[in-house]
Structures are given as C-alpha cells and as structure tokens.
C-alpha cells in the first residue's frame, strides 16, 4: 500500500505542477495577487507529495520489498543498511526521483521566502519552475518509473553495483544534483524576469542566495566525486576528463561566471543581458549533463542505464527549454537597457575578463565532449577526445584567469588603477617568486610549468589573504581589529574562495612531483617511494558480509621507523561476481602514500601500483575552502553596492603620508 501511495503521490504532483505552471503565470500577467499566491502553496504541496513518494521508495528499499522492480534490480537483503538507503538513488530511476525531489525543494524554497519578492516575478518564476517539474515528473512516470511492480516477487535482489557501495556514493549524487538542479531556480528567475520584462539590480539580488546554494553544492559535489574516484577506482588519478565529469564541470564554469557577473549586475546594474544569458546557459548545460548521463550516448563510467528512449525524452525536454528560453530572450533583449558604464581597467572589467575566460573554457569542454558524438553522427568515425585535448585547451585558458585573480579583486569599481594594484600585490608576488625559486631548488629538477604553477598558487593564496589584512589595516594599526570584524562578510568570503583556488592550484601542480612504482612483489620485498619505504609483509584471504577478498599487508617505513600499516585489497563481490579494488593509504600531513594491488595470480606475488603523492589533499581542500567562502557569503544578507570611484579624484596622491 505504501509503495502504491508513493506512486500515486507522484502522479498527483505531476497534475499539480501543471496547475502551478498555468495559474500563477496567469495571475502575474493579470496582476491578480491571489492567483499568484496559489503558486507558492502549490509548490509546497508538490514538495510534500514528492517527499512522500521518495519516502515510499526508501521504505521499499529498507524492508527489501522485491515486488518493486527497482528494488529487486538494485538491492539485496545482505546489503549493509547504509547502502539500502543510498541504493535508493544509486540507480537510474531512483536518481531521477531524487532529481525531481530536489527540483521541488528549490521551488518550495522560493515559495517559502516569497514575501521578499514582487508578486509578478514570483508568479512567473514559480510557473517556469513548475514547467520544468512537470516535464521531469512526466519523464519519471512515463519513461523511468521506480514504482513498477513485479507480479511474482523474487526472494533476493540483484544487488547494487559493488563499486557504488561506498559512503562516497551516499553523498556525491545528492550534492551534485543540488548543484545541477539549483540552477533550475536561477533559470526560472531569469525566465520569469524576462516574461515580466523587468531586469534590474533587484533581479541579481533575488537570484543571489539560490545561485550561491547551487554553486556551493556543485563545487562540493564535483570535489567529492573527484575524491571518490581517487580512492575508489585505484588509479590514483583525481580527474579523468570523463564525459560525465565534463558534464558537471560545464555548468560549474558558467555558474562561476554567473556568480561573478551577477555581482556586477547587483552592484552596478551593468552586464544585465549577459547575466540573464548566463543563467539560461548554465541551466541548459545542467540539462545537457543530465541528458548525456542518462541517455548513455557517451561512453562513460557512470552510464548505469543506457536507454535510447529515455535519452530521446530528455533531449526533447532539453530542446523545449533551451529553445523556449532563448526565444523569450530574443524577444526581450531589446528592452533591456544597458546599465552603468565602466572603464576597461576596473572591477567590472576584471569580472568581464573572468567571465570571458570561464565561458570560453566551458565552450572548449563542450566542444571536446560533443565532438566525438557529432563526428560519429556525420562520418561514422569513432574517436575519443581525451585528457591531452583538455589539457591543451582548458589549462591555457585557466592560467591567465588565475593570474588575474589577485589584481581583479583589488581594482576599484568603474575605473581602476592597475599600477597601484600591482604595487599592492607586490609582497605576495615577491613571496610567490621566492617560493617558486625555493621549490625549484628543493626539488632540483622538475617540469618548469609545475614549479611556476606552485608559485602562482602561492601568489593567489597569499594575495587573497593579504587583502583582508590590507583592508583591516587601512587607516592605521589602531582599530585594525575592529575593522577586521566590521568587514563585510562577502568581502572575506571572496578572499577565502580565491585563496581556495590558490590552494587547489598548488595541489594540482604538485601532482607533477609524485613518485610512482608499478611492480610485482613477494612478501619481504621493499620498494622506495620518495622518503618512504614500502614493504610487503604478506598476502591473506578475508571474507566480508557479501564479498571475499585478497588482502596484502604492507608496512610503511620512514627511514627505519615504521609509521603505518596498509591493507589494500582486491575484493570479489559474490552477488555479481564483480572484482573491485580497495586502496591502502597513509596520510602524512597533506601528502599520502597510496597503494593499490592487482592480480595475485600465483598467491605468492602481488602486482601493485604505489605512489607517493605530495600535498595531494590540497586538490580537494581548495574546493572545500571555496565552498566555505560561498557559505560565508550566503550568510551575509546585506546588499552589495559598488560605490563608483569618481573620475576627478586622485585618492592615492591626496592621502596624507602615514
């Protein structure tokens, strides 16, 4: 009964979303606030219904109700409880249900905070959000229904893909979806503002919290996915330029651009058309990502359901929303008057530069991801566009952007003083330079680009933090602490997020200095990894609840001192006869010793891959700091205004010497 109620609630939510797609919009156009007010109410009702539906499916998983086809396909009575929970969204149908749940969550979020919004924009926005919800609810009900039942219920399920039985899976997809789907509400606001025809600084203010939530979760989701791939796949890599990774990176790039351009719009009423366009593009890329992942048109590790019919459905949704929004955009673009003017060298100019590079990088990723599809469609030739392509295109586009961060952050609004800014970053630059030389000296030889990148990362990190100090100290050391506390949180947030970029750059640069050993060992053998020595002690079998495994015991020595014991393993999951690797890792500060084992063909030898990975943790620490910056900025409810610097002022010269 519970399962069927869940199914019905979903059907009800679909009809309700159709209602919500029509009535508030009607109210917005007729200026009838009562009709508009039906929108928030319907949005909350939708969230409740879809939550009920999701709870029903979760219940079916928890009690192993194998009469539900989806549970039978993806669960197993022996599965540990946490994976019964996470198994709900560890498969195609369940993950799409999560997708619409999050969509409803954002819709209801706007509804709850609706008192701050003008009624016509609220009505139009909720109507657009409901159109998206209707499309995806229809997709779930017609093409990917998780509530289909089996007449003859089997007694045991087919198990969840063992590679997905990992705590990482429990959080990675929901985070990623919060990000992906979060941009839906930004899109809805953009479409709503276009429908109503009022696009101004207030719009940027409205989308700010949603934009930040989406960006924070997407950032964390991508970082989480990268970390998961690093320790679960046993290849020691953190980014593979896999199509699905690209699918999440593209909205992140344009979403980051949107975050910056919306600041210009909120503070200076400039870049309006561009900001609206970015909002549309970002959600379109989220939809494209969903399409790429769900249709299985690309060869990808994530394609756990490959079904052309579903792909076609999502493709149609994609075309309808992108086409619709661009048509609307074309209609209204003329009506948008351009806002505040600014000089090329100014905070606005720097943010435009940021947008340009981010958008072009997103374009490069898009081309690299879709080119194989297009080529195969046209000529039938199969190619793969791999890391070399992305390294060649994306890296040169990101480097100038990174270099520009410390300067852009310091430029004044409307017209800036580049020379003065360069002087103010001098200390950080000098430290970065010294660090670069020191690194080069300490490491001896190494790829020049990597050493430069370490210096760049340090420069960004130091310059970002230094800006906080500088602002606090402006006006003398006295009262610096009071000023520090009085700094707008958004300002500190920006500095921290940019410091996060620097940290990530350092982490990535250090991968060039990792030590790798691929060899075959027998018990007693040792291998040297940088400062550490890895010794194989023995190989033994082990049995877990639903797998058997071969475990290799290693000890890690620093000189003669034993510092750690590692137990990497090769598991064979019985339900699916599927092997997986368990990596052994020993963390030393921010660095790691990393061992993955392969075949133990004769029982006496073990093939293994071992790494010394200096400062590898920084790769994920950076994004976490970026997300923290976002969170801090989210907590600042104050408005942001960029007071323009007047042309005739020469503040540097007029200030008395300190």
């Amino acid at each position: 009964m519970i399962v069927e109620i869940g199914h019905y609630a979903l059907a009800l939510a679909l009809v309700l979303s159709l209602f919500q797609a029509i009535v508030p919009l009607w109210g917005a156009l007729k200026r009838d606030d009562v009709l508009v007010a039906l929108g928030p109410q319907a949005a909350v009702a939708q969230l409740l219904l879809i939550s009920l539906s999701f709870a029903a499916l979760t219940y079916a998983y928890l009690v192993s109700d194998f009469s539900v086809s989806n549970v039978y396909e993806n669960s197993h009575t022996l599965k540990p409880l946490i994976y019964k929970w996470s198994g709900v969204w560890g498969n195609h149908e369940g993950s799409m249900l999560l997708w619409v749940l999050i969509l409803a969550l954002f819709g209801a979020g706007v509804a709850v905070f609706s008192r701050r919004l003008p009624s016509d924009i609220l009505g139009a926005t909720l109507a657009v959000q409901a159109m998206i919800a209707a499309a995806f609810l229809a997709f779930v009900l017609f093409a990917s229904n998780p509530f289909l039942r089996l007449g003859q219920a089997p007694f045991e399920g087919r198990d969840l893909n063992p590679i997905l039985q990992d705590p990482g899976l429990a959080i990675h997809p929901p985070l990623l979806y919060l990000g992906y789907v979060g941009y839906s509400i930004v899109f809805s606001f953009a479409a709503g503002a276009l429908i109503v025809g009022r696009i101004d600084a207030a719009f940027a203010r409205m989308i700010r919290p949603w934009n930040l939530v989406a960006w924070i979760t997407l950032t964390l989701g991508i970082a989480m996915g990268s970390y998961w791939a690093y320790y679960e796949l046993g290849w020691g890599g953190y980014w593979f330029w896999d199509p699905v990774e690209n699918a999440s990176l593209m909205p992140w790039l344009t979403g980051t651009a949107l975050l910056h351009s919306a600041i210009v719009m909120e503070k200076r009423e400039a870049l309006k058309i561009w900001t609206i366009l970015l909002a549309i593009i970002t959600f379109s890329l989220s939809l494209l990502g969903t399409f790429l992942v769900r249709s299985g048109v690309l060869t990808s590790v994530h394609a756990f359901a490959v079904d052309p019919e579903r792909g076609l459905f999502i493709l149609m949704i994609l075309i309808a929303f992108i086409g619709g929004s661009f048509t609307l955009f074309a209609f209204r673009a003329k009506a948008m008057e351009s806002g505040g003017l600014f000089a090329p060298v100014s905070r606005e100019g720097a943010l435009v530069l940021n947008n340009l590079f981010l958008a072009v990088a997103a374009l490069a990723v898009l081309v690299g991801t879709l080119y194989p599809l297009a080529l195969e469609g046209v000529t039938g030739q199969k190619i793969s566009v791999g890391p070399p392509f992305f390294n060649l295109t994306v890296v040169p586009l990101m480097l100038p952007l990174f270099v520009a961060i410390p300067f852009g952050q310091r430029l004044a609004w409307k017209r800036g003083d580049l020379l003065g800014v360069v002087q103010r970053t001098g200390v950080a630059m000098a430290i970065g330079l010294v660090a670069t030389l020191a690194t080069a000296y300490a490491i001896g030889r190494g790829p020049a680009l990597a050493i430069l990148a370490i210096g760049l990362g340090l420069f960004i990190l130091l310059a970002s933090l230094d800006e906080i100090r500088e602002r606090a100290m402006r006006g003398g050391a006295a009262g610096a602490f009071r000023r520090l506390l009085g700094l707008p949180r958004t300002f500190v947030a920006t500095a921290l997020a940019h410091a996060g970029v620097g940290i990530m750059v350092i982490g990535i640069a250090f991968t060039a200095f990792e030590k790798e050993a691929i060899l075959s060992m027998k018990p007693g053998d040792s291998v040297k990894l940088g400062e550490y020595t890895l010794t194989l002690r023995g190989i033994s079998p082990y049995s877990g609840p639903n797998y058997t495994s071969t475990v290799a015991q290693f000890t890690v020595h620093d000189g003669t001192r034993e510092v750690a014991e590692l137990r990497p393993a090769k598991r064979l999951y019985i339900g699916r006869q599927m092997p997986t690797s368990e990596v052994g890792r020993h963390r030393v500060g921010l660095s790691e010793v990393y061992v993955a084992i392969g075949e133990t063909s004769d029982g006496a030898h073990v093939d293994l891959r071992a790494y010394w990975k200096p400062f590898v943790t920084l790769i994920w620490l950076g994004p976490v700091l970026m997300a923290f910056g976002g969170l801090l900025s989210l907590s600042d409810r104050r408005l942001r205004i960029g007071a323009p610097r007047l042309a005739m002022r020469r503040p540097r010269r007029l200030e008395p010497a300190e």
Partner: protein
Amino acid sequence: MTRKQKRLMILGGFGLVLVSALALILTGLRDQIVFFRSPTEVLAGKVRTGEAFRLGGLVEQGSVQREPNQMVRFRVTDGPNTVAVTYQGLLPDLFREGQGVVAEGRLDASGAFTASTVLARHDENYMPREVADALKKQGHWQPGKTDGPPKP
C-alpha cells in the same frame, strides 16, 4: 580615452581571447584526438605505424599470458581478426578473457600493438559502446550474452 576607443579596446581584447581559444580548440581537435579501430580495420591497414589509436574488441579466450615484471600479452579479437597486444602495468579490475576491452597505444613496425593504457569499465555488464558497435558490424554481437537486467 574616448568612449569609442574604450569600446574598441574591450572588443579587441575579447576578439583576441576568443580567436586564440578557438585556435587552441581547433589545434586540439586536429592533433589530440585518437581514433577507435577494430582489429579488422587495423589489419586492413587503416592505421599507420606509430600513430596512437584505441583498439577495441574482446579479449580472446585463452590468450592472456602474464610474464614477469607485470608484462601481459593478450590478443584482441572482433571475430574474424585478432591483433596481439603487449602491455606493461596493472590491468583494470574488470579485465577478463572473453570480455570487452579498449586499449590505447601504438603499432610498431612489426605490426604488434603496444598499449599504454588498458580500459575496462565499472559495470560488469558494461560493454564499451565502440566495442559493441564494432562487434555488431562483424556479426558477433549476442545481446543475450551480456545478461542485461530484464526491462519491465
């Protein structure tokens, strides 16, 4: 600086970045892509010696030989034709005889293929799409054999 000059400067900067980015993308698409080939295509001489490409097919039954120093020799087949592969390194978890595989590498002068990476994917039912297509072309595709879940 007049407003017109400013605008020109901004547009010029934009254009410069865009043009260089496009140039990068096009260069990348020309030089940095690898083609996917089946053993039949390789034997038909479609691949030049020394050119990097991806070889896809099934690992031939009984062809895997493990040698010291993690050297592995195996043959990749698409039915009528096979290509011998040598690879040094750790094979992926799902590498098995009779299963689909994609190996990236180059042909040497003698026509032997040396792989730099060997890929097998997450899902045990997973057949790389290119491999499936290549096998279909050779008439060796048996969908039933992959034991996909029954669609309700």
